């Protein structure tokens, strides 16, 4: 019974949103749902954040491996919460936006989160290199095509691409690697992109229908 209600909710809301597109008076429905979602998400955080605390506190109390680091996490978490909620060290006081210039909260962001996230992101440079060394090998035809396309584009992004093929007469300028690179981006790449996009579109449509009709219900629990 409880689950039937849930399925009905999905069915009703889903259909409603689909229909709303064709009915001008219901245009604003999307915005409303977006607002609702944001609000729900914050409530949900009490579960997520709560779980974060629980996990690390147990780790701490049970003196599990690496429990020391749990202290760091816990401290960091609570400190930010306190600073942010009471807007400590915020020039504008409680009225100002939490991310106001010069606020302690913002400083924390600039000096701790910015370096951390951008460095984590920067690691990609290394992984891209190791991946291209390890994975870009002409194992089979697909792999070879992937490899060649990537190689041409890469070359096209360097001055050497131009230098290597500068002897090519302008009548055949398409064969100059940088142009070749751009051409690949605009033709074959475009075709692939479109095929993938249309496919995705159909995938989403069909999955949404399954969900709305309650055929796909794994996320709601499958008690038998």
């Amino acid at each position, binding site marked *: 019974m409880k689950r039937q209600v849930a399925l009905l909710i999905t069915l009703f809301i889903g259909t409603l949103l689909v229909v709303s*597109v*064709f*009915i*001008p*008076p219901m*245009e604003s429905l999307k915005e409303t749902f977006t607002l609702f*979602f944001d609000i*729900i*998400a914050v409530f*949900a*955080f*009490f*579960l*997520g*954040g709560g*779980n*974060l605390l629980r*996990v690390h506190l147990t780790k701490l109390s049970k003196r599990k491996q690496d429990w020391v680091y749990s202290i760091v996490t816990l401290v960091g978490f609570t400190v930010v919460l306190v600073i942010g909620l009471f807007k400590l060290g915020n020039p504008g006081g409680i009225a100002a936006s939490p991310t106001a210039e010069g606020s302690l909260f913002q400083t924390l962001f600039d000096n701790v*989160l910015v370096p*951390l*996230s951008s460095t*984590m*992101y920067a*690691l*990609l440079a290394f*992984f*891209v290199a*190791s*991946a*291209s060394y*390890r*994975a*870009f090998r002409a194992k089979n035809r697909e792999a070879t095509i*992937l490899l060649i396309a990537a190689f041409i584009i890469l070359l096209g992004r360097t001055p050497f691409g131009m230098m290597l093929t500068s002897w090519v007469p302008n009548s055949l300028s398409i064969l100059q690697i940088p142009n070749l690179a751009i051409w690949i981006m605009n033709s074959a790449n475009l075709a692939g*992109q479109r095929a*993938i*996009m*249309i*496919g*995705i579109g*159909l*995938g*989403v*449509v*069909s*999955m*949404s*229908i*399954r*969900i709305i*009709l309650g*055929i*796909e219900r*794994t*996320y*709601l*629990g*499958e*008690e*038998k």
Partner: protein
Amino acid sequence: MDDQLYRQPVFRVFQIFLIIFTVLAGSIFAQDPAIGLTDSADVFVPAPPGAVKATDVVYDQGGAVDLEWELSPDDDGSLKVSGYYICRREVGGEDYRLVDSVMAGVRTFVDETVEQDHTYQYMVAVNGDCSTAPSEESNSITPDMEWLNFGLSNLFIIGLVICGSVIYFIAHAKRGKKFFIRKIAGLEAVDEAIGRATEMGRPILFVPGILDMDDVQTIAALTILGRVSRVVADYDTKINVPVSRSLVMTAARETIKSSYMAAGRPDAYSDDMAAYITDEQFGYVAAVDGMMVREKPATCFLLGAFFAESLILAETGNSIGAIQIAGTARPAQLPFFVAACDFTLIGEELFAASAYLSGEPKQMGSLKGQDVGKAIAMVFIVLGVITTTLAQAWDIGVFTWISDLLHDLFQVTS
């Protein structure tokens, strides 16, 4: 050549000066009609713009009116006309009020400040207020709200056809019709991958992307998690689902729990299987990376919405020698999965996965249905390309007709 002149900074300055002047002039004389009326010889008053046509904007909530007028003969780019000033009044009500203004050379305006079911009249004046060289009054117009957006009827029709085909085949399958579905390598490998983890006595890592429940890919990932954790429950292997959104954590727990119940082992389920890390993209990645190198999972599922982290996770997973099954609908990230993972679900396959894994006829039916959708799209593409090309080659009525039809059919207005 004119263009050259136009670019001259001197000219620019002059032009800006002129605009400022005209606007000032306009407003001054607006404030003091006495002067405005007496010697208009000093102030050049351009000829009024031509007739104003007001039409209701269709398929809206009745909050907008389309205006169109003929430019003033003096509006020849010589800046005698600084701009057009749209004035409006309610019929039988107050006199004309300035609503808004547009630059010279503009001949249309959408008034979004009207109220439904009130009747309005418009006129367009130049240079600053409603009294300088106003046009004739427009037709009176009553913006109203439509109940159906016929502008989207093509979307509706095609949508009906494709969604219809999906539903039809689901229903068809319900009546016990079996459909052939080709093997999808990535999904064939799921059982084996889980089995491997069981043998090695190592955990399984399932990453449902980094977006919240408001993204379909996350939902798709969770539906797959349902199938996976069902198998995991049977094998009695350890599964970790670190997530970067609280809502996803909740949903993931719900999903795993029910799978364990379905497998008849509710006792084996624990909330620790799905844990929230942090909303911050790279904070989450840092943590998951750490998890990988410390717990050394034998199998990694990377399914859902991924951004830059795709390769970080995939390469780290690879460095610990895990079997990796990845999938996303983000074209930008697919290459990295293809390069660094053992199996990759490309776009549509991600959404088809749970249906495929479920093995239920109904779900299989939906796959058949979306294939029909694909077929339709392909037919339209082929037909469209051919007819449009032919229509261009020889202007034969039927081709032009078909190609135009197809074109209108697929143009999405809003």
